């Protein structure tokens, strides 16, 4: 196996390569001091980053947010007219269709007045 790219060594350090590739690289590293040195540098860097101090916020954010949050989280916005949430979806659709037909019928009736009785 030829020397891997730095990208593969970096992923190897994270154990993020497919199992077969990970195993092949492990074999290569046993016999390649240059790659071993490069991997050591990457792993040392990872360790140093992990060992950095971990700053904390230093106060109870939940308590601080208490006054800034509305009582209930707002529901997602709906565009246009909508039926009450408690109606099942099928009933809501049917009701909307009936309403639309009724409105259309009403408009047609107004446009064509009843004939006057003699």
């Amino acid at each position, binding site marked *: 196996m030829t020397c891997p*790219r*730095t*990208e593969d*060594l*970096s*992923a190897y350090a*994270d154990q*993020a390569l497919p199992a077969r590739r990970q195993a092949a690289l492990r074999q290569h590293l046993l016999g390649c001091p240059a790659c071993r040195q490069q991997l050591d*540098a*990457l792993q040392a*860097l*990872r360790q*140093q*980053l*992990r*060992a*950095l*101090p*971990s*700053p*904390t*916020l230093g106060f*109870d*954010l*939940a*308590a*601080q*947010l*208490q006054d*800034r*949050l509305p*009582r*209930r*989280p*707002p*529901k*997602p916005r709906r565009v246009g007219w909508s039926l009450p949430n408690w109606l099942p979806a099928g009933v809501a659709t049917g009701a909307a269709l009936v309403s639309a037909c009724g409105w259309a019928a009403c408009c047609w009736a107004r446009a064509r007045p009843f004939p006057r009785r003699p």
Partner: protein
Amino acid sequence: MVPMPASSPPDETDCIARAQRGEAAAFSELVTRYQDRIYRFLVRMTRSQEDARELTQETFLSAYQAIARWRPEARLSTWLFRIARNQALDRLRRARHVEFVALDEVLHEQLPADTPTPEAVLQARQRVAALEAALARLSVEHREILLLRDIEDMPYEDIAEVLGISLGTVKSRIARARTGLLQHMPR
């Protein structure tokens, strides 16, 4: 908001569902769980404690506004980090100048307790300072991915989710970021 009584941590999905129904205590629990992780990420992204404090609050306010739309297919941590990251990028874009704040001056008090001698303490501070300075000099793109991988210990799949990039790009970008960081480190 009323803090939850001390007990074993509730299942996170259940906690989110209760927060979505408007239970303030449940959202409180989520804030408490994640506030320090989000702050830790933001303070190194923005290189400003003040900005990081403010943006941590904004992250959770945005999360509260959007929590009704959260779906269990997305991990809460990646969702929160995506919000935080966007907050940081907006702030960095609006910044008129880049001001490097020596974070090590604040962080040195958090050095491990097992460094008894003054020389050891000084060396530890210098190592931390050098690494923090090198991290701050990286591009935003490289800094954020190293923060997520090596400090937040996120798997590649979660990083891809947070940054909106492919796994292949995660792999190559992490490698370039590490190479770049090594180049900025003192020999």
